[in-house]
Structures are given as structure tokens and as C-alpha cells.
């Protein structure tokens, strides 16, 4: 089973792009449900992205890549 890690579509109000500023875990790390796994930045505001489930982190969009609201950036694989 996998759970999607996505940028919430209402995280900021304008349509400007953001960026994944950092992943706080490595690809393949075990992460806990609700842990902060990534930071995305829009302007000078950092938004923390939490894990939707426990399991292994799969990073799909690397740090410093541009992202849009609603975009999937990774997933959590659980057994």
C-alpha cells in the first residue's frame, strides 16, 4: 500500500509556484505517521509537510525543484 505525499492545494492563496526546500529524511527512510518529512517554500514562508502514514519514504521530487499547489512530491510505502 502507498500513501501520497502532496502539497495541499490550499497551502497558499495565489497561483505562484513554490519549491521543495528540503526533505528532512532520506529516500527509503522509515518514517512515522504525522512526522514532518519535507519543507516547501513559497516566497519567504516555509510550509511543513507531514507524513500521511507510517512506512518507507519514497521521494519523487528532489529538493530545490519547483512545485505547484496540489502536486504529488512523494509517497509512503507501507507493508
Amino acid at each position, binding site marked *: 500500500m502507498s500513501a501520497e505525499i502532496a502539497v495541499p492545494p*490550499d*497551502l*497558499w*492563496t495565489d497561483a505562484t509556484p513554490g519549491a521543495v*526546500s*528540503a526533505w528532512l529524511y532520506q529516500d527509503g527512510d522509515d518514517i512515522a505517521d504525522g512526522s*514532518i518529512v519535507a*519543507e516547501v*517554500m*513559497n*516566497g*519567504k*514562508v*516555509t*510550509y*511543513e509537510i*507531514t507524513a500521511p502514514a507510517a512506512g518507507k519514504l519514497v521521494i519523487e521530487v528532489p*529538493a*530545490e525543484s519547483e512545485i505547484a499547489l496540489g502536486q504529488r512530491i512523494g509517497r509512503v510505502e507501507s507493508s
Partner: protein
Amino acid sequence: MSRCEKIFKIHASGRQGERHMRDPFIAFADALSRGNAHDLVCEQSVRTVQAGIDEDLVILADLARRGRAAIRLRIWRGSSCLVVPRAFARRRGFAEAKAACALPVAVRGSGGTAVVLGPHVANVSLCCVTPSNEGREIGDVFADLGRVLFPALARLGIVAAYRRVDGAYCSGTHDIAVDGRKLGGTAGLVRTMSGMRASLVHAAVSLTFDSKDLAVIRDFERRLGLKLSYRDEAATSICHEIAHETYRQAAVA
């Protein structure tokens, strides 16, 4: 003591100026506390800048745990330190840049680029917690901070507004600008915890400005491979603006 600070101390006299003469940090904190509806926490000298930064997140978590809308205003300052966003700390070359830096290096969770904090910078933090489903945006929290900051600066005789200052360090749309120069910068952090949307916006307001700060920032960012350019003339400070206004008034009289 910088030239501006000396001018400030010499010329900030008179009924209002008496209050300013001792320490611009105290004057600014006093101006913030007057007419402010929020509880103001004032810390003149935190143990370390990193501790000062971390304390904002402790306050944010504490407010979120209470499970109801809350707001907290804090002003603090610490010893000289370069502060960088967490994304910098994950860049290649960070350890070497940190080792070579002329100042201690602290890391913050909010966005932006590098800044120098120290006894000459007042940090104003606004922690705001609302239920996640209320949809309060970070822009609203920046507006809340502006409603506190700008009247306080006006009490010191400084007319400031949010505006991007091109050529300034750590520039953004919510720069605190005075006549096209940067008096302070702001940044924000949003996290969801305990079912609450917890927002932190903070401002670093220059009490005095030292161009050596820019040299430290330039050197650090260059070592990280960042090619950002800044102009010394794009920056100003509370002391500089008050001295300028005092001279202007004297000239008019």
C-alpha cells in the same frame, strides 16, 4: 558604538527622545508595548540566538496544544550570529562555510536567505494559532504583524511599510521598507499540529546597521555557491532614521 548610534544618542533628545536615548531596543520594545492588544514577551538578551529562534517554536507548540485560537507577540535579541534557513543547512558545502564563517551560525525553520542577528537587531515574532478549518492565511498573519510594527515605528517617528527592497539582503515582498531602504526583513513558517494551523511570522529590525554584516552574508552565501548581490545603500536602521529625522526637524526649525 557606530556613528549612527552616537548621533542617535546625542540628538534624540526632548520629550520623546528622552525615552530613546538609553537603548534603541528598549525604545522600540516600549513603542511596541504601547497600544498593543497582544501580550508582549520581551527578552533583552537570550542565552544564544539559536535558543531565541527555538523558543518561538516552543511557544507555537504550546499555543497549539491549548486547542483554541491564540496569538503571542515577542521581542528579543541576542549576541551576533549568522542565521540561515534550514534549506541552507542541507546544501553541499554548508559545514565548510559554517567553519569559515566569522560569526556563529544558527538555523531557522522559516524561509528566505541568510541574515545577521545581534545586539543591534530587534527580533519581533508573532505566533498565531487557529483551528485548521478556519482557513486563516499567512498573509493575514503578516498583516497582523504589520498592524503592530508600523504604529510602533511611527511612535519613533519612522514611516515604514511592507515593500520589496531590491538589492537588499534576504529580500522579499514583506520587507519593512523606509523610503526604498530596508529597515527589516520578515519570514514565516506554517505547520499543522494538534489539529491547529500554527503560523509564525517574524521580523528582524535593524537598530543600527553595520556593513560588515553584509560582508559576512556575502562570504557565506558565496561559499554555498549562491550568487546573490546586495547593496549597502539598500539598508537602513532605526538609529539612522531617527537621526535623519532629528536633523530634518532641526533644519526646519
